[in-house]
Every structure is written in structure tokens, then in C-alpha cells.
């Protein structure tokens, strides 16, 4: 009893831990206690177990490891006395979870205790089992628990009912064993038993269709009567909560009725009256009553159409919404989201109130309200709602701006009635919350601007004005800089003035000021600075009168500590200085960006091209799906496709020539050997040619006519020997080589006709398609493609058919396939002939569809092939 080694009492331990002033001190005390407990455990004195475990539980709550006490729980549970068992089970539930192997060792003790003569011991075992049993234990002990549902004492019946709930959650197969026992509980008068019985029935209904049918047939009317009795019952102090008799029982009954009524018109009909009564008669001035009303609304909305009830439900939610209690408003917003599904109009009526909730000081309410508002937006109210939200964006908390601006952008993008409105709204969002706007959003804006040629002047002027005021909004600055670079000439000349615009006077020098500002501001990030540099290069050609000033700004960046900036500055300076003859063509306006393909890429729902940087860009494992902006932009596709990610954002980054927000660049570390060359290439819309195809790709990329046809074009001079060592042009020498070496002599490969590498055109888990290419001499527009279809599955494909479609500039001829049966792991071939009327300007692109039968079932696979080698 009072052995010499008994250590401190629990109370004393808690006191000494509480007396600790520092965490270190506490750790010290706990360490000493744990050492004592371990020693005591090793002595194996049963009298100390109780106290040791109590101490360990306290220590456990403080967050210290206590695994060494787990076996003590088992020993205590196995002792004969109630006090030992009580603390043992408590420790078991606290120190262990169902995934620990040790738990299995307790199954036998549990079984014995479930059959114990003392009902409180049975209660302990049921409680432990109900709280932490694993599926295995559930199976082993289910018969005991099922029997206990009929036990004489209600305390055991209710515990057995909830324990069964856990058992059927763990092992749904056992559900049917419990149906009869559960239904017997619904006749009980004891509230505890009734509550747990209803809960068990609810659980069974959600797991087992048979149970659902059974309870619907046998118990619906009884449950309705029980609910009616409890609703109409006289004051019962034992169960009264704020004037309602047992709201907990109310709620569980309503929940079970919900499952029974859902999908069954007859059952729904039966419960109409009582639901109407609960909805109208329940006191709503206290939380308990509102909890019941809330559950009642849920049930009304889930059961089969009873429109009069639904009006009641929506009215309750309307009342909730104008309640001053934040909790009630919160649940109202939640419920209204569900109510939209069946009565959009009714919810729309509360729009003003809901909008007010977006401005609530409570983050939980704001978030719910914002979700709800975005569901309420339609073509008719988008302008008004957007205006409200944007107005609020100006004054909202900083930490809400990210969510809010994201939601506004998605609403604007989805419901925009016209481009100018879209651009206006996006400009407002970027002005207010530009630093929170995600890359894909401002990228999308640029794509839209690019497509709205009649608005180029308007947009660049609006951006110019905005950026003067909101120069700290990074993404606004980026979009502005991009537009000034592209459309700077429209800015200074007020070209394309719309009626709604006031003319503004912007000199060329003013426009350059904005860009210079962005490049020199210390907190501009790398992407912005790089974009500014590109814009300057473009402006040097657009604004010849101040090109000297622009050159000066560029030259200053030669001293930038950021390698990328330094390199760009040197390269651009060289262009400005030494290549005036080609400069204007080099920096021509970007071709219109393709919205559709951008959106496809942005959606990112399609499998990404999975090649890594390490792989050569020519062998793209699966070019399908990453739809090509490429041919439309005449950009270097290779490095884009080979990039580790194919999201729209990355893509546009490349397209904008700003692929340098990478950590390596920002941290000032030396970028990978590839980056430098790529960037220059991107900026010039050149792309990184891979050695095997460099000459052709540079041609395409420069948006000029074909390789050999038009040698007089200044740009074609770039076509020739883009040197194979281009990837290592990080050294200054290499860079100059690149630009200086633009001799007009056509390369060897160009005359001989380059060899085209084979590609994997498509690959799924079952099918792989490879293309090999050859060019018939004499007609550069024509390409012969041999397609090889490889069956990767262990089954034979029959009725195999390959179909393909191409854009208008291509013509396609398909020869018959070598077979229409594709044996397991075998292959068949098919020849295709493609004629490219835009040869040298556009690349091949193809959509395809493959159909076949697999084990008698039709299989359809589709994809887009956009990884054709350039120059075909």
C-alpha cells in the first residue's frame, strides 16, 4: 500500500508541474516523474498501477510521450475490481487509438466484461468499445453488444445502442444483424435509450437499404407519434431546455424522419403535419429552439416535394438571416446555399442581406456569405453584385482580400457580358488587391486584352492611369507594363479613343517613366523587372525619339545583381545598339493570343506533359492534351512543352518571356545553364531550339515566312546557325556569338532537309501511339507519318479504329491500318499523309479518336497531338 517507492501522489505531481515557471523546468519535473513511473511499473506492484496511470494520463495531456504505460492499462482492465477497471478503460481510451496493435490484446478482457455481473463494469466495456474499437474487434464482439441492446437496465441498453453505431460504421456488413434490436428501442420511454436507439436506426438506414425500407415501413408512423408527443408534452424539468422538451430527442427524430422521407413520397406525406407544427410552434428566441428549427428546415428540404412546407422553411431561414446572433446568421447562410437548389428565387430575395453578411466582421460569416453570393450571381445581376463586391474590396480587411478578389475574378470571368466590362472590373480588382491576384488570373487578363484589338488603346490608357495611383500592386504593374510595351504607341497618341474616354496627354517619356519606375523600384520582384526590361526593348523601337534614354535605362541594368537581369540588359543593349536593322521586326507586337487554348491549359484538367528538364525536349512522352498555343503564337514550343509543369500559368510566363520568378533567380543563385539562353529566346519569341531542329524552329518562332522561301526577310537571317551550344550561352561571349553570328548563309541542315525525331503521340495505361516522320523529296509541305499503335494491356483489342482531324490549313490522308485487331502487347501500323499549307509558319496539330472493343466492351480514347516536331 504505502511502499517506500510509491513516489508522489497525483495531486502533488500536478501541483509541482503547475508550479513550474518555464517549459524547461516542466520538462524536468515530467522527466523525473516518468522515470519514477517506469521504475514502479518494473516493480510490478498492483497497488501503484492506479496512480501511475492517472499520472501518465495527465502527462499525456501535456503532450509528452507515454507509450510505456499502455500495458498498464491492460493490466488494470484485467484486474477484478471496479476502480481499477474504471481507470484502466479510461487510460486505454486516452493513450491508445484503434490503430495500435496493443488494442487487440484487450479484446478478451472486453468480452469478459461485457458479460460481467456488475452492470457498471459492462457499461465501462461498452463505452470503451464504442469509442475506440477497430473493425476486427467490432466483428469479434458484435454478438455480445447486440444482446446487450435488450439488457434489463436502460443504462446498458443506451450504451449498447451507441456501441452498435460504431460497430456498423466500422463493419457495415453487420448492419442487418442490428435491425430488429434497433427497432425495439424506438418503443422506449426512457429518453436516453430512445435518443441512442433513434441514432442507431439512423445509422443503419444510411448504411443498409434493407434497414431503410424496414424502418420506413414499420416505424415512420411510430416516430411521428413520438415526435408529436414530445412536441406537445407538458413541462418536464428533467428534459426542459429553454422551454423545449428535450431538443436533443427532437433533433434526432427529425434526422431519422429526414432519411425515411427522402425519396419516398408516401413517408414524406405522413410527416408533413408534424413538420409544419415543429416549424411554426417552436420557440425561436433561444439557441435550443433554433437548433430544432434548423434541423426541421433540413428535413423539410430533404424530403419529397411539399411546397407549402418549403415556403415555411425558407421563411425560417429568412428570419435566421436577420437574427442578431452571429451563430444563427451563420447557419442561415449555410442552409440557404442548399436551398438555392430548389428555390433560387426565394434565396435571391435575400440578396441584399446576404451581401451585407459579406462585410461582416466575423470571418466565418464572411466566408459563408461570399460562397453564397457567388452562387447567386447570374447574367442579370452580375454587374450589380460585382460592383458591390468591388466597392467592398476597397475597404475590406487585408486578410480577406485574397478570398474576396479571387471570388470576384471568378465571377467576372464566368459571367462577363462584354470584354470592356471584364477589363474594367479586372483593372479595379488589380488596383485594389493586385498583390493577392494569382498568376493565372492576370495571365488570363492579358490573353483577353490581346484578343480585344478594338480596346487596346482604351486598355493601355486605363492601365497607365491606374498604375500611377496603385503602383504598389504588383500584378497591376505587370499587366500595365506588358500593355505599354505592346501598345505604347496607342497610349501616347490616344489612338482608338472610345466615346466614354477623356483624352489624356501622355508623352513617350511619361510612358517610359512608368516602366522605369517598375524596374528601379526596390520591391519589384524579378518577374516584374524582367517584364519591364522586355517592355523597354519594345518601346525602344516604338519610340525612336527617346531610344537613347531607353538604352540608358537598359544599360543601367547591366550592373544588376540579378544574373538574369544583367544578361538580358547586355543582350538587349546589343540589339538596340548593333542590330537596328532588325530591331523593329524583332519587337513587333505579339500576335493575338489564343483564348480557347489558353483556357484549356489553364483549366489544367488534362494530363500534364510529364517530361522533365533532364529529358531532351524532342522526346515528349505525351504531348496530348497540353493544347498548343504554340503554333498560334509561333513561339518556341519545345522548352515550353518540356517544362515540368504545363499549367497555363507557366505557359504564359514563357510567352511573356518572364520565366524567371524562380527561386534560383530570386535568391541570386546562378540559374541553371538552360535558363539564360531560354530567356533571351523567349523574349525574342525565339524559343530554345534543340540541336536536332534548331534552324527550323527559330524560323517558325520568328513568325516569318518559310525557311528557304524568303531569305530576303531580315529575320530569316536569324534562322541560320543558331549554334548547337546555345544552351550554354550563359557566358557573355556566347551571347554575342548568338547575335553576331546571324549570317545569312543557310545552314547545312536546312538545305538537306532536317531529320525529324519520332514522337510518342499518345499514351494511356492501355495504349501507346508512336509517330515516325519522313518528307518526300520535292514537296516540303508534305509529311508522311507512320503511326504505330502498341497495345500495353494484357488483352486483345478488336475492331480497332483510328480517326484523326486536323485544322483547315492541313490536309490529311489516312491509309488503311495493317490490321483492326491489336493483340496483347502487340502492335499495328497505319500510314498518314499530311499536307501543311502553312508550312514553315505553323506546326502540325491533330486531334484523334481511337475506338476499340476490349472484352466485348466499347472503349473510346481521345486526345490532341501537339508535340509534332517543328517544321513539318
Amino acid at each position, binding site marked *: 500500500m504505502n511502499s517506500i517507492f510509491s513516489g508522489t501522489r497525483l495531486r502533488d505531481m500536478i501541483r509541482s508541474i503547475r508550479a513550474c515557471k518555464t517549459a524547461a523546468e516542466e520538462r524536468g519535473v515530467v522527466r523525473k516523474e516518468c522515470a519514477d513511473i517506469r521504475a514502479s511499473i518494473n516493480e510490478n506492484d498492483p497497488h501503484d498501477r492506479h496512480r501511475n496511470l492517472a499520472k501518465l494520463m495527465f502527462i499525456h495531456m501535456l503532450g509528452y510521450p507515454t507509450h510505456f504505460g499502455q500495458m498498464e492499462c491492460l493490466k488494470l482492465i484485467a484486474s477484478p475490481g471496479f476502480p481499477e477497471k474504471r481507470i484502466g478503460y479510461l487510460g486505454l481510451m486516452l493513450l491508445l487509438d484503434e490503430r495500435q496493435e496493443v488494442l487487440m490484446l484487450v479484446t478478451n478482457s472486453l468480452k469478459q466484461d461485457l458479460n460481467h455481473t456488475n452492470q457498471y463494469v459492462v457499461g465501462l466495456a461498452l463505452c470503451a468499445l464504442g469509442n475506440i474499437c477497430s473493425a476486427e474487434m467490432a466483428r469479434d464482439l458484435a454478438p455480445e453488444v447486440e444482446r446487450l441492446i435488450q439488457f434489463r437496465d436502460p443504462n446498458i441498453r443506451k450504451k449498447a445502442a451507441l456501441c452498435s*453505431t460504431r460497430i456498423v460504421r466500422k463493419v457495415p456488413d453487420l448492419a442487418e444483424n442490428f435491425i430488429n434490436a434497433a427497432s425495439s428501442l424506438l418503443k422506449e420511454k426512457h429518453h436516453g435509450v430512445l435518443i441512442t436507439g433513434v441514432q442507431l436506426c439512423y445509422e443503419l438506414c444510411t448504411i443498409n437499404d434493407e434497414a431503410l425500407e424496414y424502418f420506413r415501413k414499420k416505424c415512420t408512423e411510430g416516430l411521428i407519434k413520438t415526435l408529436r408527443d414530445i412536441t406537445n408534452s407538458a413541462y418536464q424539468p428533467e428534459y426542459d431546455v429553454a422551454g423545449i422538451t428535450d431538443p436533443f430527442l427532437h433533433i434526432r427524430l427529425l434526422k431519422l424522419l429526414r432519411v425515411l422521407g427522402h425519396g419516398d413520397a408516401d413517408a414524406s406525406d405522413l410527416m408533413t403535419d408534424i413538420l409544419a407544427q415543429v416549424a411554426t410552434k417552436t420557440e425561436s428566441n433561444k439557441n435550443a429552439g433554433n437548433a430544432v428549427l434548423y434541423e426541421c428546415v433540413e428535413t423539410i428540404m430533404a424530403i419529397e416535394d411539399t411546397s407549402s412546407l418549403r415556403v415555411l422553411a425558407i421563411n425560417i431561414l429568412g428570419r435566421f438571416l436577420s437574427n442578431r446572433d*452571429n451563430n444563427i446568421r451563420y447557419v442561415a447562410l449555410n442552409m440557404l446555399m442548399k436551398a438555392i437548389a430548389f428555390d433560387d428565387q426565394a434565396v435571391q430575395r435575400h440578396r441584399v442581406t446576404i451581401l451585407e453578411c459579406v462585410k461582416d466582421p466575423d470571418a466565418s460569416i464572411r466566408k459563408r456569405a461570399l460562397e453564397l453570393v457567388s452562387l447567386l450571381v447570374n447574367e442579370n445581376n452580375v454587374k450589380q453584385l460585382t460592383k458591390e463586391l468591388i466597392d467592398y474590396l476597397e475597404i475590406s480587411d487585408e486578410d480577406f482580400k485574397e478570398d474576396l478578389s479571387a471570388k470576384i475574378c471568378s465571377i467576372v470571368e464566368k459571367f462577363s457580358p462584354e470584354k470592356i466590362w471584364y477589363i474594367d472590373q479586372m483593372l479595379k480588382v488589380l488596383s485594389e488587391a493586385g498583390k493577392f491576384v494569382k498568376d493565372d488570373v492576370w495571365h488570363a487578363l492579358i490573353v483577353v486584352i490581346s484578343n480585344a484589338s478594338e480596346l487596346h488603346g482604351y486598355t493601355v490608357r486605363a492601365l497607365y492611369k491606374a498604375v500611377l495611383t496603385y503602383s504598389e500592386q504588383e500584378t497591376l504593374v505587370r499587366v500595365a507594363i506588358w500593355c505599354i510595351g505592346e501598345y505604347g504607341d496607342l497610349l501616347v497618341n490616344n489612338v482608338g479613343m472610345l466615346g466614354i474616354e477623356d483624352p489624356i496627354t501622355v508623352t513617350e517619356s511619361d510612358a517610359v517613366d512608368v516602366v522605369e519606375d517598375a524596374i528601379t523600384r526596390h520591391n519589384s520582384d524579378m518577374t516584374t523587372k524582367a517584364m519591364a526590361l522586355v517592355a523597354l526593348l519594345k518601346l525602344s523601337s516604338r519610340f525612336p525619339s527617346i531610344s537613347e534614354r531607353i538604352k540608358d535605362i537598359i544599360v543601367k541594368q547591366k550592373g544588376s545583381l540579378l544574373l538574369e537581369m544583367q544578361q538580358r540588359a547586355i543582350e538587349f543593349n546589343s540589339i538596340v545598339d548593333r542590330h537596328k536593322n532588325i530591331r523593329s521586326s524583332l519587337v513587333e507586337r505579339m500576335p493575338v493570343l489564343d483564348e480557347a487554348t489558353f483556357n484549356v491549359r489553364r483549366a489544367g484538367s488534362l494530363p500534364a506533359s510529364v517530361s522533365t528538364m533532364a529529358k531532351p525536349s524532342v522526346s515528349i512522352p505525351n504531348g496530348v492534351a497540353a493544347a498548343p498555343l504554340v503554333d498560334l503564337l509561333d513561339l518556341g514550343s519545345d522548352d515550353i512543352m518540356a517544362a515540368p509543369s504545363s499549367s497555363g500559368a507557366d505557359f504564359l510566363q514563357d510567352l511573356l518571356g518572364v520565366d524567371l520568378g524562380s527561386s534560383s533567380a530570386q535568391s541570386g543563385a546562378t540559374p541553371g545553364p538552360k535558363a539564360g539562353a531560354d530567356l533571351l529566346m523567349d523574349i525574342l519569341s525565339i524559343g530554345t531550339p534543340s540541336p536536332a531542329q534548331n534552324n527550323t524552329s527559330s524560323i517558325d518562332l520568328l513568325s516569318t515566312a518559310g525557311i528557304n522561301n524568303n531569305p530576303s526577310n531580315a529575320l530569316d537571317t536569324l534562322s541560320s546557325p543558331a549554334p548547337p551550344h546555345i544552351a550554354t550561352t550563359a557566358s557573355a561571349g556566347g551571347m554575342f556569338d548568338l547575335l553576331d553570328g546571324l549570317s545569312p548563309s543557310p545552314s547545312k541542315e536546312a538545305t538537306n532537309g532536317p531529320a525529324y525525331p519520332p514522337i510518342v503521340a499518345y499514351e494511356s495505361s492501355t495504349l501507346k501511339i508512336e509517330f515516325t516522320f519522313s518528307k518526300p523529296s520535292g514537296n516540303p509541305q508534305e509529311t508522311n507519318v507512320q503511326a504505330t499503335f502498341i497495345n500495353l494491356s494484357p488483352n486483345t483489342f478488336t475492331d480497332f479504329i483510328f480517326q484523326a482531324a486536323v485544322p483547315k490549313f492541313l490536309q490529311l490522308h489516312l491509309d488503311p491500318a495493317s490490321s483492326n485487331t491489336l493483340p496483347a502487347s502487340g502492335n499495328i501500323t497505319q500510314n498518314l499523309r499530311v499536307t501543311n499549307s502553312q508550312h514553315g509558319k505553323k506546326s502540325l496539330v491533330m486531334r484523334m479518336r481511337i475506338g476499340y472493343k476490349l472484352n466485348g466492351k466499347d472503349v473510346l480514347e481521345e486526345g490532341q497531338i501537339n508535340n509534332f516536331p517543328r517544321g513539318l
Partner: protein
Amino acid sequence: GTDDHSSDLFWESRINMIHFVLLVSRQGKVRLTKWYSPYTQKERSKVIRELSGVILNRGPKLCNFIEWRGYKVVYKRYASLYFCMCIDEADNELEVLEIIHHYVEILDRYFGSVCELDLIFNFHKAYYILDELLIAGELQESSKKTVARIISAQDQLVEAAKEEASSISNIIAQATK
């Protein structure tokens, strides 16, 4: 929901249950934790750390619900203690507030105007009472009186065992004098 099972019987197919109960003091000390869904010890500490950070920093007049990792945490402050219960998104938050209050009232009745110190030194009692209130994350009893009666019956069993033990040890002590 670790207990996910799909069911298209009704529109919210997730299990409705209390996943865990947490009592945290204003100083961020844990006073009680009860887990009805499986969380490893590591996850448990992470949950506690994360949630107490959010809850202790919330202003006084805000609603009692936090959306957290796809779940909802309903919390209410009583004196220096925050009572928190984590439920599924589709659950009835208002009812959980009532369950919390129900528990607090039973504690209050048991300890006689309960305070944090009671729950520190008699933490095991707080657990025993909770076990009479919830099993498997579901409510077991709506009558405070019934809970009090069952708890006191068990306390008496413990007392009786103690007395018996001490009388036996007295006899032994007498006999071996």
C-alpha cells in the same frame, strides 16, 4: 470522416458525429482531449496546436463556429476554458452548442460551480462524466439527472472498494503487529 462510406440515400452522405472534444484554457493548456475518430498521437498534437491557435485568437463577439480542414469546430468559452467539439460540415452546429452547454451544466452540478482547478486536479472525473454523455461521438443522455445518478453510483463503487481495501489492510496491519 475516417469512417467514410458512400451512400446516396440522402444529400449529405458523410457521417454525422463528433470527431473529438477538446478543452483548452485561455493560456493554451490542454485540460481534456477525447478522440472518437482515429488520429495518431502526432496528428493529435498538431490538431490541438492548430485549433487552440485559431480559437484563442478569435474576437469575443464572433460566431462560435470555425471552418477547419473541411470540418467545423464548434467552441464556446466558459470562464477561462474553451470547450470545443469538431463535427462534420453537414452537422447541426447549434445542437452541438447545446451539447457543450449540457456537459458544462453537468460538470457544474457535479463539482458545485465548477472551475478550471476542479478540472485540473480531477481531470479523470471530467472524463468519466463525458463518457456518460457521449459514446462513439454521439449523444448518450439528455437528462442531467440521469448522468449524475450513474456517475454517483460508480463513485460509490469506488469508495466502497477503497474502504474495503483499507479495512483489509488494517486487519493485516493488526495481525502482523
